[in-house]
């Protein structure tokens, strides 16, 4: 169980979920909690983490796509300006 708990803590830290992390730290510190309670809380928190990780992944993917779109658009705009005869920045041929 401790290994699983450590894994959950690592994932939480990675996601920077401070409130949940402190709750879980307290849970770990008490040590006196009944095992089934701890296990149930772990299940809940893992679901929570899964949801957050999913959201983070989606947001990251969207951001990456947006960044790619932006850089593509910026490159196209620069190329259009060049094709229209805008001065070429120094250092480029």
């Amino acid at each position: 169980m401790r290994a699983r708990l450590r894994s959950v803590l690592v994932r939480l830290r990675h996601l920077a979920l401070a409130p949940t992390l402190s709750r879980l730290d307290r849970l770990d510190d008490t040590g006196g909690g009944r095992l089934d309670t701890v296990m149930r809380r772990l299940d809940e928190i893992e679901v929570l983490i899964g949801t957050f990780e999913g959201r983070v992944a989606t947001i990251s993917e969207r951001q990456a796509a947006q960044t790619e779109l932006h850089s593509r658009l910026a490159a196209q705009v620069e190329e259009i300006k060049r094709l229209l005869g805008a001065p070429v920045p120094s250092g480029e041929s």
Partner: protein
Amino acid sequence: MNAPFGIALDVQALQAEGFSDRGIGRYVAGYSAALARREALAAVLLAPELPPPDRLPLELAARGLVRWDSRAECRDLLASSERRVVYHVTAPFLHVGRGEPSSLAVVEHWAEAAAPRVVTLHDLIPLRAPRHYLPTPADEDRYRARAEWIGRSDLVLTNSEHTRREAIELLGCPAGAVVTVGAGVSSYFTPPDGTDHQLFRSQFPHLEGRAYLLTVGGDDARKGTDRAVAALAQVVRRGLDLHLLVVGHVSGEWRRSLEEVTRSCGVSERVTLAGAVSDELLRACYRRAVLTVTPSLAEGAGLPVLESAACGTPAVASEGTALAETAALAEALFDARSADAIADTITAVVADTALHGRLLAAQQELAATATWDAVASRALAALDRSIGPAERHRVRSSPLPGRLAVVGPLPPGGGGIGAYNARLLDALHVRGDPVTDAVVTTQSWPAEPTQYRLLAPDAFGIDVRPASFDHVVYALGNSSGHTATIELALRHPGWIWLHEVRLPAVATTALEDCGDSDFDAAMAWLLHRAYPGRAPLAAARRAGRDHLELAGAGVGLVAPLAERCRGLLVNSETARQLLLLDLPPLAALPPIKVLPPACPPVGQARAEQSSRGEPSTRERSTQEPWVVAFGIVSMAKRPDLLVDAAVGAGCRVAFVGPCPALLKQFIEERAAARGIPERIAVVGEVDQEGWHFWMAQATLAVQLRDSSGGEMSAAVLEALAAGVPVLTNLASASEYPSGTVAWMASLDAEELGSRMAALISSRAELAALSQAGTEFAAAHQFSHLADAVMEALAG
């Protein structure tokens, strides 16, 4: 002599950087001029995508032979030539590098034309040293693929016996299909005539009156310049007072490397790295040298040896390369891997006046016969032999079908223009002629397989050549989503289809990430570019980033596109008139063609709705009727006016189409303020089923525009096809036959409300509009548009 063939000679080596001023460029120039003198050329082909030709023999232009290679030119040549047209590639390894436009070298329309292909092969050195020349597997794959394409040619002409053997061994060419035609020495290379002392003295004063060796080097280690330097050091140690003049482009890194070699050999004072030189200076250098040294490890032809001899200087050369074929005597050869061997040969020739004279005489004899006319004769003879008598009588190759590319968005992206493109492409496919490809500029591609080929914008101009299409049509709208299309249109001129003739939103949306000063500077530059000497700067300052304001001020920004297109297509006469106001007044303009609108199949929406058993609009007439605004909701479509008009019209209003959250809130708040929140529905984006549902629900479609770029409205056309009566102020709709739509010129809420009320209370008028609309739609299907597009492009 009139050859039985008309050769279409590809000379784009004269346009390619790094080729035109080197051996292959010289070869192409000399060879093409000789073929022209023998009246063997049907045309000399240049690539429209590349820079103007460098050192193109003027006699080619004077004979009217020069053409821009394109599908249309290819077709014309095949149709008009009285002789069998042969396609002849003179620099087959052009554009073989990563990201280079391979489609310029392996030309699709010539492959389709099935004309016999002849290739001049200059060398296959990279296949002998792939680790040096083809550093990655991808490089090697590309090179080998091109080599195989060369090997599949009907005839391979080589510049030397050495290259011929390489073609047979490395490409597996049948011996009978590879013919050595050699290379010619330009008549420019002649013995000293006392005319260039000043030139030589001005460039190399320190060599005046000194004995020097000449080597034609370059950046490539293969040329053996470092070993020539080492050999010089040896001959100097043996007591020969010689210098070394190195001509040919030397880049910084290679120059530093060579300078290090000269220092380590102790001959820094005796070596001159001249860099690239003009033909005149090269000739002056040849003429004054004691001996030319060519220590290259691999060469496809021995031209430097013959050029040197023609200038009165013998040459020594490396064995085992094509140079050996022109060196004439065994005493002139050395093992180029050994500086000792090079030094021995130099010493022997320089020290022995008789051998020096004998060598020069033998090489001059070879040079005298190495003319471009002789090369052309051998090539024509080989062509004559390689194509059988039966083939010779077949004058024309197979006809080329027409081919069209449509560049623009396709669903699921691209909004109305994407959907319009998709329907047009389907209609063109059904039409069959021309064969049509789509260059898809939207990020996501159609999920369903299409009947036509889909190409990526990045491939257009690289893997696929725009000149291999009879026409390229760029479908443009007014947003930054079209920048990829604009970039391609500027790069590869074609027909520009302006779905809107005022395009300020392309600029404002593309520049929306810019800060204010950058935005202002970019807009000012663009305005000066589009309207030189009369830029509407005040209007632009007033408008800021508001593209509607800019469009209203007549800022279309089309001129930079129009100046390098083949023609402009618009969707209405209004659009044509507005376009004329935007383009340079009193100047020659490209052709502007007005296309008819096209509607989806008639009655589709209502039929699908009926098949699901939904009640028709008329059966629902017990409730307040629905007035529907179809399509993307924006302020340009004046939803505020429609809400206001609904107050007195006695109807419900639905906005069916994508709607930004802020605009939805605005509409709902306005409806609440007017006391009719329950009568206004912002439906948002719907799928096809939902779209058809609302078409069936609508008693009247109201499609408004704040200002007009002469555009048509896909929503209007869909409503007409669905039999939904339309009320609109769209300028292009005023050109439809009377009664097709209910048209109003002004944008006034009260008048709009009155018209809406009058229409929805008159069953007869609604029925007449519905009938006229469906008749119009039936007469304006995409099949008709496809015909009209092809007619416009042909005209």
